[in-house]
Structures are given as C-alpha cells and as structure tokens.
C-alpha cells in the first residue's frame, strides 16, 4: 500500500518520458507536437494528483456537509493551462503548415537538407 501511493507519480514519469521521447526521437514535426501534448498532459496529471486529498471532494460548497476538500489551487492553474496549451499547440500547427508550404516536407532531416543546399 505504501508503494501504491506512488503509482500516480510513476505514471506521470512514464507519460512524461513517452512525450519526451516523441519530441527528441521522431523526425515528423506533427509527431513532435503530439509528443509535446503528451508531455503537457503528464504535467497536468502531476498537478491534479498533488491536489487530491484523501476522502476529499471537489472544492465546491454544495451544502451537503462535506468538510474535506481537495486543493483548489492546482486545479485553477491547470484549468487555464489546458486552454493556453491548445492555443500554443495551434500556433505550432500553424507553423508546421507554413513549413510544409515552403519546404514541401514536414520531416526534420529533409528540411535541414533543403536549408543546407
């Protein structure tokens, strides 16, 4: 049970590293952006996990006598971060589309070859 308490963090590490691997190892620019999205989602999961309190409920006073609430602060940070995340991902996708139009490719090494020519 002691180690079970760390399971969430291990999942966070694994997801983070899967995203990281996609960013460093994949050549395709869209795949890299997908990797960044995974990386980002892992961080979201870490924050929300830390905010959870045993026996707590969502931090909304609903008048049913709940007295233990999970931490609202990480939720606020992540709530806004999700919307900011999609906006910045869209910006990245916009850049990829322009790269495709200019270079005819979204594979990193092909773009580098064209640049060196």
């Amino acid at each position: 049970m002691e180690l079970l308490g760390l399971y969430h963090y291990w999942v966070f590490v694994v997801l983070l590293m899967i995203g990281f691997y996609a960013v460093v190892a994949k050549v395709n620019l869209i795949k890299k952006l997908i990797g960044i999205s995974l990386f980002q989602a892992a961080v979201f999961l870490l924050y929300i996990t830390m905010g959870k309190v045993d026996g707590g409920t969502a931090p909304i006073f609903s008048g049913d006598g709940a007295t233990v609430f999970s931490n609202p602060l990480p939720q606020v940070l992540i709530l806004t971060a999700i919307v900011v995340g999609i906006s910045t991902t869209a910006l990245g996708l916009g850049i990829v589309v322009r790269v495709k139009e200019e270079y005819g490719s979204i594979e990193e090494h092909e773009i580098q070859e064209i640049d060196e020519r």
Partner: protein
Amino acid sequence: MTVVFGIFLLTLLVITAAAIVRTQNLFVAVMLLGIFSLLIAVNFFILDAADVALTEAAVGAGISTVLFLGALALTSERERLGTRHRWLSLSVVASAALVVLYATFDKPRFGDPSAPVHQHVAPWYLENTPAYIDIPNVVTAVLGSFRGYDTLGEVFVVFTAGIGVLFLLSVRRGGAAPGGTGAPGTPGIGLREHVIPRVVGRLLVPFILLFGLYVQFHGEYGPGGGFQAGALIAAGFILYALVEGEERTLAALPQSWLLALMVGGALLYGAVGLAGIVLGSTFLDYSVLGANPVSGQQIGIILIEAGVGMTVTGVLLAIFHAFASRGRA
C-alpha cells in the same frame, strides 16, 4: 473500488500514450490522442477536479482533435521516416526517467492531507471564500478574484496565440511553394451528402450551445466558467461546421464577429480591472464594484468570466477557420 478504477485508468493512459508514439499513421495517432484526452479527463474527475475534467474533455477530446486533423489535411497523414538516433534518444530519455523516478520517492504519498502543497495558501482560500466572495465554487473564486492577475495573463496568452495563428495562416500561398497538398478537387469540409451525421449533428448543436451558456453562467455554483464555456461553445460551432460546411458557419458567425469577440473579451477583462482603479481601489479589486464588497466581488467575477468566455470562443473559432479556409484555398 475507486482506487482500482484509478489504477486501471492510469494504466490505460500509459498504453494509449505508447500506442500514439509507436504508430506511423498520424491520423491514428490523432484519434488516439483524443481517446487519451478523454481518459485523462475521467482521471481528473476522480481526482476531484471537476472543472479541469470539463475543460479537458471539451478542449482535448474535441477541439484539439479537430485542429490536428485540420493540420494533417494540409500536410501529410504518414510519417515517412519513423525515428532517427533511436538508441541515443532512448538512453537520454531513460536517464532522465531515472532521475525523475528517483525524485518521486521523496514525494508525499498520494492523497496525504499533510503534504506541503496543502499547507500554503490553499486552506486560506477554502476558509475565506465564503466570507470574501460567498460563491460555492472555490475554483472559480480563486480563478476570478484571488488569482485574477494570473487569469488576465492567461487570457492574453490565448489572445496572442490566436493572433499568431491568424498571422501565420492568412499569408497568401506563395506560387513557388512546392506541392500544394490538398488534392485538387477535394470538396470542402462538411458532411452535407451524409444524411445521418448531418441530422444528428444538427440536433446536437443547439444543446451543446445551451450547455455552454449554462456552464458560463453557472460557473459560480457548479463546475464551470469562461474557459470551459468558451471551449464548449467553440466545439458546438465546429460541429456545425463539420456537418454543414464551413461557409454556413461563417454566415452564422462571421469572421469580424470572431475578431470582435477575441478583442472584446480581453478588453472587458482589462476594463473591469481598470474600473477598480477608477472607483478608488487597486487594479482587479472588484470589491468596489457593488453596493458592498461581497456583491462587488460577485459582479466582478461574472464580468471577467464573460470576458474569458468571449476571448476563448473567439480565439478557438478563429483558429479553426484559419485552418479550414487554408484547406479550401
């Protein structure tokens, strides 16, 4: 029971993520990413973060999937060369993983109420929200009032990203660009010739919009607020565009309105902040806006949430149209 379910969901997340990275077909990867978002939203929900779950479901599973698909339509659906420097990358990632894993052993156990994160300002927010703001949803109170500066910053980041996408994709296509990607003669988006998706989609749209408005205006009492509502309303219009075609959506909600929403929302937020100064207090202090400090706070939160909702709707829809119209050109 919840613990077992949570562990099951987390394991599914890892499997999905691995599948996303492994597949060479980007279309499959994007679809799996949508499933991943939905799974992580359920996870957020069982971790007591209802507001975050709502946002993630609308943004991650809905809008992000559509935007990725839009980008795929403009580029290509397959990775030509999967991986380079596989072993070097694997060893870098593995060593980073070991460092972070080592760090997790110092972390407080899951759900521990005495963890440092619960000792700082969070108890203060939980205790004082009823006295200062008197709305049930503490997340909205922190987002709108206690941390109003942060949220203002986030709104401007969203706004800036929207402007950036518009700049990038409104450039006229250069004639020298090698390889126009959209195959010639591809019909614009829209399922007008498919009866069932069209009828079902048309039926769903009004309810999605209504739910979006409910989430917007009920954000003080239940899970909700401007960010979620903006994403939901944008998702409703995007669904309409998918079943009826982009032009009809633009006829219903023209581009100039979208720009007005983007700018107007950010300006409204800033104006509420300035109103605090004008009425003799500090920037973003809503206490002076009403007859008494508590009702002032409530008015302020409703106004800034409206601003957030407007900007998020405007930006997400403007980004969608930027991708979609690029496909038509």
